[in-house]
């Protein structure tokens, strides 16, 4: 296994990559009308954050960053489950999944 060799890539490459994914995720959330794609973009943003965490965890040589990434994944799972439950319930009543048609608090 690699000794104390230098990081396979300098750390800022990973930061640039996660920045790119983060930007695409934000664009996704803001521009898409369909709630499911917005949810997927949020998953993408969480993934971008994970890359950062793991890059620095490798840089510092400790596993703390990876542990935090695991917690983020569990949180993403919980959030996706509940959000999709809401979307399903909403679709069953209002036959629509478009964000801008979800404008009534009570119908």
């Amino acid at each position, binding site marked *: 296994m690699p000794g104390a060799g230098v990081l396979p890539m300098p750390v800022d490459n*990973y930061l640039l990559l996660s920045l790119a994914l983060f930007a695409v995720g934000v*664009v996704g959330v803001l521009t898409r*009308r369909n709630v499911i794609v917005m949810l997927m973009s949020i*998953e993408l943003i969480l*993934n971008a954050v*994970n890359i950062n965490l793991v890059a620095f*965890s490798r840089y510092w040589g400790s596993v703390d960053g990876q542990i935090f990434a695991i*917690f983020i*994944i569990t949180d993403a*799972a919980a959030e996706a489950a509940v959000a999709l439950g809401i979307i399903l319930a909403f679709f069953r009543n209002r036959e629509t999944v478009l964000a801008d048609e979800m404008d009534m608090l009570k119908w």
Partner: protein
Amino acid sequence: MTGSAASPITSVLFYIFALMAVASAVLMVTRRNIIHSAVFLITTLLATAGIFLQLEAEFLFVVQIILYVGGIMVLFVFVIMLVNLDVSLHLIQFNRQKYVAGVLAFVLTAQLLIAFWVGRSSLNLGDARAMDPKNTEAVGQALFQRYMLPFEIASILLLVAMIGAVVMAKRRV
């Protein structure tokens, strides 16, 4: 990986994964067909899993595939199929404020880039320290010893999410 002093293999791999991740992320956001964007998100997740592997986070690589791609994305694809989305194919997929959103995102990225450019000098703090080769054992020990409390909170969070999902899926809601 046997990355001895940034050998050509690992850097080539990094660029492949990075390119794949960004390209499929962009495709995911722009596709009209929801299933296609779901498939592209899966490719992004697999690409990021590759990057985790390259950063010697083996356990996270496997967790990412099992949990994210094998679990959450299956949920997404299920819901997309159940909600029978071909009706929404010919609806316009992008809301009206897509130009404003584009500008806003551009400003955000520019800001982050500047912050990154300015702080660039603080990043190269010399060599990376060595990783513990037995990654899974290290993650296991840390997870159950130092991070016992967050682990329990995460399990409660999952429990709450399960109950929420069950309540949501009830027919009589």
